[in-house]
């Protein structure tokens, strides 16, 4: 949150959609773009973008991660904030790019890029001070904070403050909300039993809130929690916060 000092409201921002959003939750990405546009910003979506490089980075393949990371950095040259609808990918770009590029010719450019990275709700609250008007019908929701949004990006209260702005939305805190859902990228398939135990506990916690929707800012978690909810035939549905906010403020639900 070190880059929120000053709170200069920019006129143009870049949007980095992330590969999980691209393939599984494109609606969340579009909602993020539209929320920003509605605030009067010009939003640029470089079509060459793919992935932040985290999967390779976390698996120990630095050269591969760096080559993919550099392909992204190059697409965001201007001095505009880079907004991500993901705390995890934002954490990768903000916290890990500097070490990934340390000692390389790209170091300065990578550091400049990292300095401009924001998680979406962080940007909406801390920089734009967004005001929301709820047009939806009464509903009950709970919030799952992703590990990296909390612990790498320092985003914890911003998304909740957005949910609290919505008059017809009852927000119930998830028991043990700060505990990992068991996704962890390759962890879910490398340690399938442990990951399964974690996500099973997580959906039990979701069920205990009796929420209609479990909202998160990270699509990896939503893929995991949502998949488990569906398999267990539980009623709660997963939704990305950008999509939820867009729908509530435009009367789609």
């Amino acid at each position, binding site marked *: 949150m070190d880059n929120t000092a000053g709170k200069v409201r920019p006129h143009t921002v870049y949007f980095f959609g992330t590969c999980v959003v691209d393939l599984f939750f494109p609606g969340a990405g579009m909602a993020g773009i539209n929320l920003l546009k509605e605030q009067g910003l010009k939003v640029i979506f470089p079509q060459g973008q793919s992935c932040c490089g985290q999967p390779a980075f976390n698996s120990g393949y630095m050269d*591969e991660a760096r080559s993919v990371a550099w392909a992204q950095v190059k697409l965001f040259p201007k001095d505009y904030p880079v907004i991500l609808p993901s705390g995890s990918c934002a954490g990768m770009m903000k916290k890990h790019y500097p070490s990934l590029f340390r000692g390389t010719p790209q170091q300065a450019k990578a550091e400049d890029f990292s300095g401009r990275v924001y998680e979406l709700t962080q940007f909406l609250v801390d920089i734009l001070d967004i005001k929301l008007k709820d047009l939806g019908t009464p509903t009950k929701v709970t919030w799952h904070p992703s590990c990296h949004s909390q612990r*790498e990006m320092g985003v914890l209260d911003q998304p909740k403050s957005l949910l609290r702005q919505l008059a017809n939305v009852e927000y119930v805190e998830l028991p043990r909300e700060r505990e990992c859902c*068991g996704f962890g990228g390759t962890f879910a398939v490398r340690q399938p*039993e*442990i990951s399964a*135990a974690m996500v099973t506990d997580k959906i039990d916690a979701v069920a205990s809130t009796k929420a209609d929707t479990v909202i998160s800012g990270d699509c990896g978690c939503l893929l995991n929690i949502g998949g488990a909810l569906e398999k267990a035939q539980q009623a709660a549905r997963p939704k990305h916060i950008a999509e939820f906010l867009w729908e509530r403020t435009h009367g789609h639900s």
Partner: protein
Amino acid sequence: MDTADFQDSARTALGDPQLRSNFRRAMDGLMAKRAAMFPDRDEWTRLRSLGAAVRARSLLNLPHLLEKLEERLTANGIHVHWAETVDQGNAIFKEILAQHDAKHVVKGKSMVSEEMHLNHALEEVGIEIIEADLGEYIIQLDHETPSHIIMPAIHKNKEQIARLFSQKIKDAAYTEDVDHLTGMARQVLRKKFANADAGVSGVNVAVAETGTLVLVENEGNGRMCTTVPKLHIAVMGIEKVVERLEEVPPILQLLTRSATGQPITTYVNMISSPRKADEKDGPEEIHLVLLDNGRSRVYSDPELRNTLRCIRCGACMNHCPVYTRVGGHAYPGVYPGPIGKILTPQILGLDVAGDLPHGSSLCNACVEVCPVEIPIAALLVRLRREAVGNGAKALKSAIPPKGAGQHRSRVESWVWWGWALAYRVPWIYRLTGLMLSRFGGLMPATIPLLKEWTSVRSKPRFASRTLHEMASSQEVPND
């Protein structure tokens, strides 16, 4: 031990509802107690930076501090021994005990002695060694190893302990009353303390400038072991030294608050010399065994060196979602949880424990609570690199971690090479995205990876259009 063992034992542990509820309850309690100790974020941050600075400074001057410690201890009348390996360490113990014809030994809790398998080594030569910490005593009765570095018997509930005592302690009636159970252990162990030929202890911090061994504990067994028998042998890892006495309060206050949520333990025991001529009790002879066992190798790498900051509080395991579910016995080596995942592969070797760093979702809960700011997640990733031979090449003097590169597989390397190509070249990426969005749904759930995923989750559904397509069709500018 192979890491296939971690997966296997984790699977067994996950299927044991009693074990899981014992750990869940215990970890919830420990997390709440720790949180209550650090209500003020600013104070926590400042105390923690101080703790990290103390440990970093100690490591920076480690060889010098060890020499200074040796010099001061020797001047105070404490004998110092150095052991490069576990076998050397055990040999030193056997030799000292043989010199004193010591056959009955009592021991206060010490993880380094677990690392050495000291009990086993001494029992082999006919020496009785009794664990005096209540938790350690319980697991010794049941021939188990600690499942937690602070609370060794945390995997057991009182019914299990009641049954154990009634079977193993002479004339003990079955009771689930914790006070009664504690009383039984007191009775047995008091006799052992009074009659022991030697006492063994660990060391929480050693102070170089004064030649002092500092031990924290609640029960008084540590004081018994270091006070009553005529001979005291302490053992510590070479990393546990600080230069100045003033560095002790921050370390111990962080340790006890993080570990069990106490402002300080019942006893802080600072030992600087054996019994002096006019004193009426205390051991007549004190020995300190300094154990390396791979630590100097860990030390050689400036990043991995941070592993040695650890003050063994256990907060990382208390907050770990993996440890909470599988418990301490699932981990190879003696240190479980996140610290074990970075320490064990470096001590045992990445060839045998190289999969252990992958037993983490990198959730960073451990990093958040570590009182000396060990970047555990970053070190896990670093060890993953080392295991597949993508280690750091920056420092010539660094000795690569034991077994580095042993997990490299050609298939995995190709997979990542292909991945990097697809994600680096926009048209390949976009084409892949298009294909997946159109045909990804046809993938059978039985293919590897998807099979693991779908054990408790439905098959992920690719969206019919990618974000790239949607952005393009809605005329979101490209630059």
